[in-house]
């Protein structure tokens, strides 16, 4: 189970690292090398984004990665095959992240079944609130996968509790308003929000959006269980190539 894995890891490390990549960006070979470097550098779990043509919750960096992956011929089938390969090669949990239409068109039950069959452990679907997610939740339960739900600073306490009642594995706390890839102000303001998140659930908390470097992660130590690095590695790969990913990750903790 994802949650017990995380709890075990948390006994050894002060904070866990989850990274996010877009499958097929820049190429599937590169995606594989990036994952390999990340796992070697000690990443604890990973989000694999299946590219979608309309990623509304993503900012420019991840948006472009989605578009380029699609232009380069990424398909859902290729992503599933690729995910199977990495899930069997590397010994950390992998999650799918994608927008609901990808699941819907594939067939929700069929997609979730395929996710389980490929050896992944859960999914994040940012445009699927639990109110719309009956089929998805049923399938996730059937295949024993963790549906990851999202808290945001605009979620009232009651709603956080409601969301947490559907979540498994951990809760993904969005650090601020806005899309991915924009700087976050890691200040005491975040504290109050994170305290609200803690109160709403006993699940481990991940914090994402705008986490870029060691300073950010130092701030998050003791405040959340998992730090999520998304756009920053994509930026790095764009600028300096796949080769620098391992060093970057190693220096984060």
């Amino acid at each position: 189970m994802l949650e017990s894995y995380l709890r075990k890891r948390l006994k050894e490390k002060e904070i866990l690292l989850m990274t996010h990549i877009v499958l097929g960006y820049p190429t599937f070979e590169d995606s594989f090398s990036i994952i390999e470097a990340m796992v070697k550098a000690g990443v604890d779990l990973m989000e694999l984004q299946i590219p979608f043509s309309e990623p509304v919750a993503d900012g420019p960096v991840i948006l472009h990665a989605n578009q380029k992956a699609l232009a380069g011929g990424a398909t859902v089938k290729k992503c599933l095959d690729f995910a199977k390969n990495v899930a069997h090669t590397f010994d950390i949990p992998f999650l799918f992240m994608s927008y609901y239409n990808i699941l819907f068109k594939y067939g929700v039950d069929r997609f979730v079944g395929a996710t389980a069959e490929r050896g992944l452990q859960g999914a994040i679907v940012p445009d699927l609130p639990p109110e719309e997610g009956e089929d998805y939740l049923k399938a996730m339960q059937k295949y024993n996968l963790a549906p990851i739900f999202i808290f945001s600073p605009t979620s009232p306490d009651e709603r956080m509790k409601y969301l947490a009642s559907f979540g498994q594995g951990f809760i993904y706390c969005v650090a601020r308003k806005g899309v991915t890839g924009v700087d976050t102000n890691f200040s005491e303001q975040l504290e109050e929000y994170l305290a609200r998140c803690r109160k709403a659930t006993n699940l481990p908390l991940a914090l994402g959006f705008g986490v870029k470097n060691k300073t950010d992660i130092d701030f998050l130590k003791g405040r959340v269980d998992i730090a999520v690095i998304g756009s920053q590695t994509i930026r790095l790969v764009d600028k300096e190539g796949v080769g620098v990913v391992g060093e970057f990750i190693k220096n984060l903790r």
Partner: protein
Amino acid sequence: MIDRGYYDGFGGAYLPEILVATFDELVETFQEAKNDPEFWQNYTDIMSTYSCRPTPITFAANLTKHFGGASIYIKREDLNHTGAHKANNVMGQGLLVKRMGKTRVIAETGAGQHGVATATMAARFGFKCTIYMGEVDMRRQRPNVFWMERLGAEVVPVQEGTRILKDAINEAFRDWVTNMDTTHYVLGTACGPHPFPEMVSYFQSIIGKEARKQILKKEGKLPTRIYACVGGGSNAMGIFKSFLDDPVELVGVEAAGKGLSSGQHATRLSSEDASIGVAQGYKTYFLQDNDGQMKETHSIAAGLDYVGVSPILAHLKETGRVRFETATDKEVVDALSLTIKKEGLIPALESAHAFAGAFKEAPALSGDDIILINQSGRGDKDIFTIADAFADPGWQEFIKEKAEEYHA
């Protein structure tokens, strides 16, 4: 949120968590306004003093004679301030923005009509305004960009994706998830997450409310058929809504672009290239591939060039209450040309789809039949596209001279 805006499985509110509270507030504000009898009164007062409501229906005597079938009437939404039905929706949402105490509005625009209407409303109500417009559409509809900027709006060119309407919607959502505390997103059509389809249709229903009374007064009976073009579906919903319970055939005309078999079209409800999906926050028919990736669309009319369609219309298609037809770019230009010559009316390229659909069927109807066409907007904005379609030599000469002047 209790009512999630479903129409037999179409619609819903597929929202990222960050926007849920914003939508809850919007749903509540809209419900309160709807239940407040003064609200609609206030709305129609504004529309009759700031815009030109009620817009008339015009009997098209020459077109009627030309086709020799049904009597043709035209509902004149082109006579609204800013030249299209978009004004109806925008002024209504503007009143809600005031109720919510927000100070900034954002909008997507394809043809530029909705952008101009929103910028106008913002100027009038004193809101800050940002308009997202696909780069391709900015080139197609440059005069509207000029007016939006004059009206004080910031026009942001969208360079992502297919660089047209759907991409502008995505960018507007990206702005909104950051600035929702001060900002309302004035979605321009009857699409998107609940409550937008219902809310936009509600404001646009002023078209059909008027038209029903007007035609009954003039002809003493209801029309046989009503035609409207369908982009996102707001002008169609607007005119159809008041006739849903009447024995009136309702016909929506989508953009067939270069032909349904060319793949270059924007036909969602009558083409095999579309299927049910979930994007931009709602469930409907989308032009998408088997993986669920949205396809490129094409129409000569920027305002119809969209991958999705109103979930309410998708529902009315499934129940058979509304019939959907298509018109190609070429048929549209011909219909436009004929309407200009015969009636001295200049429909927008979007609206000309409704005319083209009606013209195909008018001759087969009898003299006792009445058809009503919704002229959703006026075509002046399309001068560059229409001039190109007609390959107008005088205009081309003028543009060249003008360009030289600027070089001088």
